[in-house]
């Protein structure tokens, strides 16, 4: 689906944390994963800015590894702070989505 940019703002960071939490990975692979998931508008640039923020906020462990093509790649893995942040994200997500469902079903 397209034109999700505005709605995805704020949740993409959580998605990236989740992807990194599964296994250590790098920027382009994360973009591809999100594209395959159906978020067609997500480009590397979007993911890059998120990774930059995660790194700056001390939520990931970064390792440079050689690549078959081009310069070394930065690989990202979650550290303890990152795992805590991911848990918080899912808690918040659960809350928001349940509230919105309630609203949609016409509840309180």
């Amino acid at each position: 689906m397209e034109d999700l940019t505005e709605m995805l703002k704020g949740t993409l960071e959580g998605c990236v944390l989740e992807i990194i939490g599964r296994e250590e990975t790098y920027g382009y692979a994360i973009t591809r994963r999100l594209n395959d998931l159906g978020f067609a508008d997500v480009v590397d640039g979007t993911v890059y800015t998120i990774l930059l923020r995660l790194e700056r906020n001390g939520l990931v462990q970064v390792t440079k590894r050689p690549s078959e093509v081009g310069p070394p790649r930065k690989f990202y893995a979650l550290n303890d702070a990152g795992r805590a942040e991911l848990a918080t994200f899912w808690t918040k997500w659960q809350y928001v989505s349940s509230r919105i469902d309630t609203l949609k079903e016409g509840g309180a």
Partner: protein
Amino acid sequence: MGIQDIIEGKKQWRAHLARVKALPPDYQIVYQEMQRYLFKVGPIDLVEGNLLSGIVDFFEEGAASGRGVLEVTGTDVAAFCDDLIKDSRTYAEIYQESAGR
């Protein structure tokens, strides 16, 4: 252009420019325009962080994978820049805060 003066003349800056020049032409164009914009907006990351060299790292990876620059940044390059400096205060903001006091 105070920031550029500070950086310029240093070996680091020359090495940085050499890396930019080694990028494919489309990446070079977008890099130059981004740099021009960032110098105008003036985020403090420009001198205190490694914002610009980080962009070159990112561009080198994109170029190596054979993709065009806009595939990597998205077509709204300005939005990409703003995302990059979202957490960085600008010199204009700092000035306004001090003037407002």
